[in-house]
């Protein structure tokens, strides 16, 4: 075990996990603070027979990933705010056409060019609603380097299983922070792989099993000869503008993920059982928040901490249950209250949800969160 211990940064951990999960194809465009992911892929993927391509922009990057995924290859791209904005249309395509793809979004301060080398968490809503139309998406938020590895691996599992784009939502600090990580042992582990049909005879590319709502995906070039279109389509993949077809497709697509919200819920709770004040956060903000919460508790205050690792689908029921004892909820985040909105929606009723937003490119200091907790009492 010790020989596998590595000092690595979050971006590197994401990449190592992707390769471990069977990444075969990476297309990307340089952008701070995600670029290391592209650089490592360029170097490492050929060693395992995988492909790397630097595309002409982020629109091309996500498009090439979707094309590769259609042939059965596991595909990933990485970017940050401005590039993530450019990718949105084709993310919607992958969502509608149910094509697995993993996107690492290493958040930086925005809007626009913003502060490219500083951390932020302002993409929380963009990751959910960035593309037009109701659509399913999964977003996971690592809180340290170890979780960059675990959640990127998980992103591939979920993307393959549900045929949905999965975003790993990190930030400049999580991406560039270095920690000692012991890579897991590979023995007995199976690389995630999407379910495939057995025979081209009678294959309907969008006929979903009624249980899970996920159709079987035939790789291009294997004799199935199916049509993939961003137009609304029927079970056969034929374009359709019939209201009944459109409605059935949209409801199945969205239910496929929303119905799994609690199953997909992943969070770390501490001291919530008897708390008066609950602090809810994610990503690098949660590091300072946890430190502040522990200090408050050591001083005898009833404060608990909830850190979300699954952001979308939003784990409303889980959050509601865990936050039940709290009289007030404090939400430190590096934006002006995007997570707080969801907390208000899921668990707010008649309890104040206090926004502690920070958008100056600096991390929270534990003292700031500590002071906010004091003030909340």
């Amino acid at each position: 075990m010790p020989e596998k211990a590595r000092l690595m940064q979050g971006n590197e951990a994401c990449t190592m996990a992707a390769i471990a999960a069977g990444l075969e194809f990476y297309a990307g465009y340089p952008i701070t603070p995600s670029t290391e992911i592209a650089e490592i892929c360029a170097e490492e993927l050929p060693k395992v027979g995988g492909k790397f391509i630097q595309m002409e922009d982020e629109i091309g990057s996500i498009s090439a990933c979707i094309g590769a995924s259609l042939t059965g290859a596991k595909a990933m791209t990485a970017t940050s705010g401005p590039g993530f904005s450019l990718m949105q249309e084709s993310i919607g395509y992958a969502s509608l056409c149910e094509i697995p793809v993993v996107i690492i979004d290493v958040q930086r301060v925005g809007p626009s060019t913003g502060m490219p080398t500083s951390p932020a968490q302002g993409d929380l809503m963009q990751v959910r609603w960035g593309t037009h139309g109701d659509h399913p998406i999964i977003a996971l938020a690592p809180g340290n380097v170890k979780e960059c590895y675990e959640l990127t691996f998980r992103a591939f599992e979920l993307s393959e299983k549900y045929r949905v784009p999965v975003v790993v939502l990190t930030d400049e600090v999580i991406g560039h922070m270095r920690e000692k990580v012991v890579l897991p042992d590979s023995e007995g582990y199976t690389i995630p792989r999407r379910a495939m049909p057995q025979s081209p005879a009678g294959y309907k590319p969008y006929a979903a099993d009624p249980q899970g709502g996920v159709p079987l995906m035939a790789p291009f070039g294997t004799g199935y000869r199916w049509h993939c279109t961003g137009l609304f389509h029927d079970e056969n993949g034929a374009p359709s503008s019939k209201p009944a077809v459109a409605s059935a497709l949209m409801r199945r697509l969205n239910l496929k993920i929303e119905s799994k919200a609690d199953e997909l819920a992943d969070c770390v709770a501490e001291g919530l059982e008897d708390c008066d004040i609950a602090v809810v956060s994610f990503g690098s903000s949660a590091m300072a928040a946890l430190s502040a919460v522990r200090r408050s508790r050591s001083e005898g205050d009833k404060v608990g901490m909830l850190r979300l690792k699954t952001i979308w689908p939003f784990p409303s029921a889980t959050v509601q249950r865990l936050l039940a004892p709290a009289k007030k909820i404090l939400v430190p985040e590096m934006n002006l209250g995007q997570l707080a909105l969801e907390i208000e929606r899921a668990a707010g009723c008649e309890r104040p949800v206090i926004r502690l937003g920070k958008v100056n490119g600096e991390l929270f200091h534990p003292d700031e969160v500590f002071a906010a907790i004091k003030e909340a009492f």
Partner: protein
Amino acid sequence: MAEFLSYFRQDRLPHIWCPGCGNGTVTGALIRAIDKLGLDKNNIVVVSGIGCSSRAVGYLDFDTLHTTHGRAIAFATGVKLARPRLKVIVITGDGDSAAIGGNHLIHAARRNIDITTIIINNNIYGMTSGQASPMTPHGMLGTTAPYGNVEYNFDLCELAKAAGATYVARATTYHYVLLEDLISKALMHKGFAVVEALSQCPTYFGRKNKIGGAVDTLNWIKEQTVNVKAAAALPAEKRAGKILIGELHSVEKAEFTQQYLELIARVQRANPTYARNKGVPGCELNSD
């Protein structure tokens, strides 16, 4: 005729194109070229973007990919690099490839990736009913150029050639035999191949510009063109303003995906003990 129908998803017909549209002619030329070459249906992926011409893929019995506007070549790049054994064909229009997708066109050409790109150029945005495109000639009309187009159009073939495409050809829906022949050659070419098919949109371009119906628009296209071989013998004043058709550029150059496969082989030879790090989703962290 019947043997060509087997290349179509007959349950998806009739198509949505207007009477007199040239898209069917170009699609027919592609199918006949594929048939003549005896390409394996199961090894072909046809990719398109958005627009009238891009709807062709929905009718074809291959693995087909109808993508977002302008991105067909980028999607196709992913398909081809992931699985270089596949024959990847792009069908796109002038708006799709020269406006919103222009960046992908020139970069695919620069890479010399083995994709056959057929650009159906009807000088107009047909799907959205007649707006000027980057291929609307100077002075002509579109609904967004109601007083005449004050912009200039590209020479798409010169553009593709300058960007690095290794096979470039142009034909028209009038010169059908030539079109089929050039598509065949493009399909056999190893590298980025562009065939521009000048095509008629009688509904919007022909009518708006008072050219007339489908046959008149077809003749209007024909009269502007001269074969590249014939042009060589013409005096300069007779060539002026003419659009060259025929094979315009064909060179041999190492192809992108082939070079990448060679790169993989080279890297793997240099790293013989490298094994894919198969991980499990649960690693240890020595600090909290």
